[in-house]
């Protein structure tokens, strides 16, 4: 029962190892002559003003929030969709109600003007 998961773990490991190996090869082959100007941030072009870790605006949080809510929704809907063949009509309607309740949340965010990008 665990076999496919072992394969997934191995593939994820390979997905990290193979690029890792090539990067190490690059590191071995490449010249290494560090100097402060080369390593300065954004070495060519206009220097950025102010500190790096700027304050992001609140809109990003709202997007992440809506994503989280719909993510959980999808998580609840997936077993429902898997069992779809065996559901009776009223059970399907319950799922639809579930979707509609969350759609109301989206509609609220829309009305409130949260979704506009400034």
């Amino acid at each position: 029962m665990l076999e496919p998961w072992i394969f997934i773990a191995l593939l994820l490991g390979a997905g990290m190892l193979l690029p890792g190996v090539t990067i190490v090869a690059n590191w071995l082959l490449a010249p290494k002559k560090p100097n402060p100007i080369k390593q300065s941030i954004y070495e060519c072009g206009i220097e950025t003003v102010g500190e790096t870790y700027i304050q992001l605006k609140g809109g990003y949080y709202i997007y992440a929030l809506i994503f989280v809510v719909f993510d959980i929704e999808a998580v609840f809907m997936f077993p429902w969709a898997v069992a779809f063949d065996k559901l009776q009509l009223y059970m399907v309607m319950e799922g639809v109600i579930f979707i509609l309740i969350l759609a109301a949340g989206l509609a609220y965010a829309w009305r409130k003007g949260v979704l506009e990008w400034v």
Partner: protein
Amino acid sequence: MIPLSWYILVSAALFSIGIYGALARRNALAILMAIELMLNAVNLNLVAFWRYLTPNVVAGKVFVLVVFAVAASEVAVGLALIISIYRRRHTIAVEEIDMMKW
């Protein structure tokens, strides 16, 4: 084969670490993260008991799903509060948010 007690030990340790984080940290965000750890410990326990004691009852999994929903809502509202407090008071250190204390 892994005995049930291993899972319980790990989850108890995870929960205790979460308790420490929630009680000791000053940063409200860190407290939220510690609470996430505690919720994960609970989930781990639920799944472990489901697997070892009642593998044929679906209740354990439903409970875990509900915990996911609760965790997401809790983080969402908690982070919203943190943002709101930060906007007004410019701090997220819990010691300094003491308006309601008196």
